[in-house]
């Protein structure tokens, strides 16, 4: 997976498949601490202790078997290659919390990628779910919140093509601006 934005799409799919209704994403980039953290919480059924433990070290232990998932081990690998780690815990609101930590400046850290594109796809294909996305770069913040969008749009669905286009264009630009032009 070449972009963090694609890993996020993958984490989103996990939450959606588990039956979550709302997904909270927090991306925090701190270049002074040289750290990039992606945290995804959902309000789904969560995972039991054993499951959490096994998805967490699937990358180390179970390459030969196939029944283990692919997504979380791939993300764990990306984290570990850039001097970070992956942690799966219970989310404070119930559900699952996935925390992926990277060394920001590490050569092997995947680039953020097309986050506007990821947000647009999520909104286009999941109009009945909510997503609250906070992206913080050295203290500056960019927010995307489908609940706020619904308030503005009344009965116009949030997956209307013009709305999806707005999401893509607006957030491609504003996340790039937030990060000083870097992709």
């Amino acid at each position: 997976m070449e972009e963090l934005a694609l890993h996020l799409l993958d984490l989103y799919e996990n939450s959606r498949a588990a039956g979550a209704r709302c997904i909270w994403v927090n991306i925090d980039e701190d270049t002074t601490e040289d750290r990039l953290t992606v945290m995804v919480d959902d309000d789904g059924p969560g995972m039991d202790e054993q499951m959490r433990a096994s998805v967490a070290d699937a990358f180390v232990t179970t390459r030969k078997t196939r029944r283990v998932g692919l997504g979380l081990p791939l993300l764990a690998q990306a984290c570990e290659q850039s001097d970070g780690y992956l942690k799966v815990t219970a989310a404070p609101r119930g559900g699952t919390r996935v925390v992926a930590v990277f060394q920001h400046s590490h050569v092997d850290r995947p680039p953020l990628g097309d986050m506007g594109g990821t947000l647009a796809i999520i909104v286009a294909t999941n109009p009945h779910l909510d997503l609250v996305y906070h992206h913080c770069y050295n203290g500056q913040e960019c927010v995307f919140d489908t609940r706020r969008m619904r308030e503005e749009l009344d009965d116009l669905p949030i997956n209307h093509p013009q709305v999806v286009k707005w999401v893509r264009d607006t957030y491609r630009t504003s996340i790039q601006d937030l990060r000083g032009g870097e992709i």
Partner: protein
Amino acid sequence: MKSLEELREIKDRVKEDIRVRQGQDEARIVVGMGTCGIAAGARDALESILDELNKRRLKAVVTQTGCVGICSREPLVDVFMPGQPRVTYGEVSPSRARQIVAQHVANGNVISEWALNVSESREE
């Protein structure tokens, strides 16, 4: 959140913008968004599908699904036209995605060359 007033403008502008084909059920398009699908380019395929639908002012329900076990043929796209059996397309690049909308969704012409055999596609 930035420029929420732009959303209000969109709302006023598009109220009756999209041509709805009256009395007809909508087409349904399902894109595989499991890890293998995403890694193979499903996001870009989906973006092309949305763009082509938009350009042609076609209405369709587009949803995502997880891994269905045909990872080697990802990205996978299912097309359900009203009253027709499902057609599953494999290795859907952005340009294939546009063709699928232009030929199959817009005009009902299945592109058999890119469709998986019935035996390859999954059970419902």
